[in-house]
């Protein structure tokens, strides 16, 4: 009987070793998978944690083994079926005669437990699956972090700074390699607009004590939404750069290409209702000239409390905090100066267009991927207590991208608003 007990102990030891190896292998694979995933997402993985995988080996050896279930499996692996389990049970009961007979039949002493270390087919399949998963993660392109875009803290204090930044971000080599970019920029009048912005910066530098309105020249621009807040509050700077900055964007930029929806050459009927309305208003505004002293505040009933708060809040004036409404507000509302304030549904300014495909990128293992954006109105606020609608930056980028802006326009717009932001802070 003691001989059989020794045999069983020997088999159980091999069983623990097998389980330790299995735990170790799967632990290492699991840790490798986790570390790979973490590295892809966060960039690094604590190297000390990789040793955890090998700890599975010791756990597998140390944990007690349920002998009956293990012997049942081991008997099948060693080709004796349930005989090993039966022998264990006979030994436990002390049925020596039956145990001896059983040991003769199944050659219990001839068993080779090291064969237990050979992995089974399901185990191999699982291991292969994990390895394939690891390989797939390894070959995948880096995961893009969809973190919020923040404005850079760099102070663009001068034209040189702006120029340096532009040089950094759109090197000449790129332009040389992509003649279409230059062409597109030229078509869209962006080069002229860029000159205008730069001129504005120079003008700002030329009037150190003042409170220059960097964006005043865009008040009557076709995209007048932004500029209408500034109206005619312009810096009295007399520098050439300032004069250049005071020029109307239409003068600076020249005639816009017919491909742009707000260009003068575009027939209004070809535009969306909102765009056509804006175009007409911009024209009338431009014809009235700078001397227009209309002081009509036309609140806009735009969807969202943010728009409402903007309407109720006093617009900053040159004297600071006056109730002077910006020029162009009434014009935007489609009213002539002097007329009662009218409400223009900003919804008109939005128009749903079919999804536009943007650039195509090729991802390894996935093929070409095309990102599309559906241009649509912002979500309607619900109720009176609706919170101000602040569009997510990622969504704004997608919307802008979907509008088919020419290359470089986004950066220009960003810098434009950066200037405005500085103005707001300093003013």
């Amino acid at each position, binding site marked *: 009987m003691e001989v059989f007990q020794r045999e069983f102990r020997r088999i159980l030891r091999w069983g623990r070793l097998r389980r330790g190896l299995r735990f170790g292998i799967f632990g290492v694979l699991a840790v490798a998978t986790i570390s790979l995933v973490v590295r892809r997402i966060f960039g690094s993985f604590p190297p000390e944690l990789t040793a955890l995988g090998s700890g599975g080996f010791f756990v597998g050896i140390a944990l007690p083994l349920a002998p009956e279930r293990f012997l*049942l499996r081991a008997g099948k692996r060693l080709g004796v*079926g349930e005989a090993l389990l039966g022998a264990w049970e006979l030994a436990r*009961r002390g049925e020596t*005669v039956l145990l*001896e007979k059983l040991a003769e039949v199944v050659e219990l002493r001839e068993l080779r437990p090291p064969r237990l270390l050979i992995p089974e087919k399901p185990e191999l399949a699982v291991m292969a699956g994990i390895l394939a998963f690891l390989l797939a993660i390894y070959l995948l392109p880096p995961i893009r972090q969809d973190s919020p875009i923040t404005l850079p803290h760099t102070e663009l204090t001068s034209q040189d700074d702006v120029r340096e930044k532009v040089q950094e971000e759109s090197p000449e080599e790129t332009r040389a390699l992509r003649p279409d970019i230059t062409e597109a920029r030229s078509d869209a009048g962006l080069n002229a607009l860029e000159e205008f912005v730069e001129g504005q910066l120079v003008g700002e530098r030329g009037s150190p004590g003042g409170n220059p309105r960097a964006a005043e020249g865009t008040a009557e621009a076709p995209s007048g939404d932004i500029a209408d807040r500034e109206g005619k509050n312009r810096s009295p700077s007399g520098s050439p750069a300032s004069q250049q900055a005071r020029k109307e964007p239409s003068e600076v930029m020249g005639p816009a290409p017919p491909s742009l929806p707000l260009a003068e050459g575009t027939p209004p009927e070809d535009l969306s209702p909102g765009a056509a309305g804006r175009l007409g208003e911009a024209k009338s505004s431009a014809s009235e000239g700078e001397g227009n002293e209309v002081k009509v505040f036309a609140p806009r009933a735009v969807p969202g409390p943010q728009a409402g708060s903007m309407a109720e809040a006093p617009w900053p004036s040159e004297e600071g905090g006056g109730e002077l409404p910006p020029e162009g507000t009434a014009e935007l509302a489609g009213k002539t100066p002097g007329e009662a304030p009218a409400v223009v549904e900003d919804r008109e300014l939005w128009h749903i267009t079919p999804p536009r495909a943007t650039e195509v990128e090729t991802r390894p293992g996935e093929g070409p991927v095309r990102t599309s954006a559906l241009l649509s109105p912002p979500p309607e606020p619900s109720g009176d207590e609706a919170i101000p609608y602040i569009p997510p930056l990622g969504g704004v980028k997608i919307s802008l991208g979907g509008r088919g802006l020419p290359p470089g326009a986004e950066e220009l717009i960003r810098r434009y608003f950066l200037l405005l932001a500085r103005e707001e802070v300093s003013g």
Partner: protein
Amino acid sequence: MITEKELTQAQEAFTKLREAIAAVIVGQERVVEIALWTLLSGGHLLVEGVPGLGKTLLVRTLARALGLSFSRIQFTPDLMPADILGTNVFAEDTESFRFVPGPIFANVVLADEINRATPKTQAALLEAMQERQVTVGGKTHPLEEPFVVLATQNPIEMEGTYPLPEAQVDRFLFKAEVSFPDKGELVEILRRNTEGEGITLPDPVMNPGDVLLARRVVGAYPVSGPLMDYAARLILATHPNGLAAPEAVRRYVQYGASPRGALALVFGAKARAFLAGRYHVTMDDIRDILEPALLHRIILNFRGEAEGITVKEILQEVVRSVPPP
């Protein structure tokens, strides 16, 4: 703990018994096998088949070869319980009542066409089969071991039959269905019955002591925890409200197998291993025993009956659905 001598003696005795039965019975190996499992397990056997298939001959042969006392009860609609159990009669000489044992007092009792008797008479066997004793006139009389009831019944669709009550059916450890012999077996039956002196019953090759010894040997066979667990899960899977019940059981079964069914599985698996010359029980033993052990213990519902579902199909589904340990 059994000795090597006892083990050898039991194995040799049953080898001779099988040879003796095979000399008389043509074919029907499965039924003979189930009958031997029943004998080794200490249970009772219900044999079902149409008349003329040799059911009675099989039982008579078994009883004769075992060297056990044998009695035959032909069940008829007018059979009374006292005709089976015995009765108290007045003895003039002693002027007292004396118990006259009925035919139930034998080692091997053949209850022929048991489902032709009324339920009341059938119920007379209940105590004898389970408690191995008979109570008549307030006095209990133990039955002699080994005590085996081998009952035959005709399919219930036949004329003049009464279905056995569930309580009595459950007391049969196994149920064997006698099938019609194939052509080769039929030719052999003709040859044995028509040539020479016809069929002669075998001489006894065992005695009651051998049977009891073999039962003790079989009882020492180990059934480990995982196999017991497997048997229990199989039983639970036959219950329509059980968590592990397959869809077929939920749909077509009214009552699942009783705990006696689980006992039948384990006892039968041991006996099968013993007769197979092995010293341990396997999962195949349990699976092979499943049908004779549970065939009569699962009651189909109306839907199952109406759709012609058989218990065999249900059991096959159960085996498929229960994963082995």
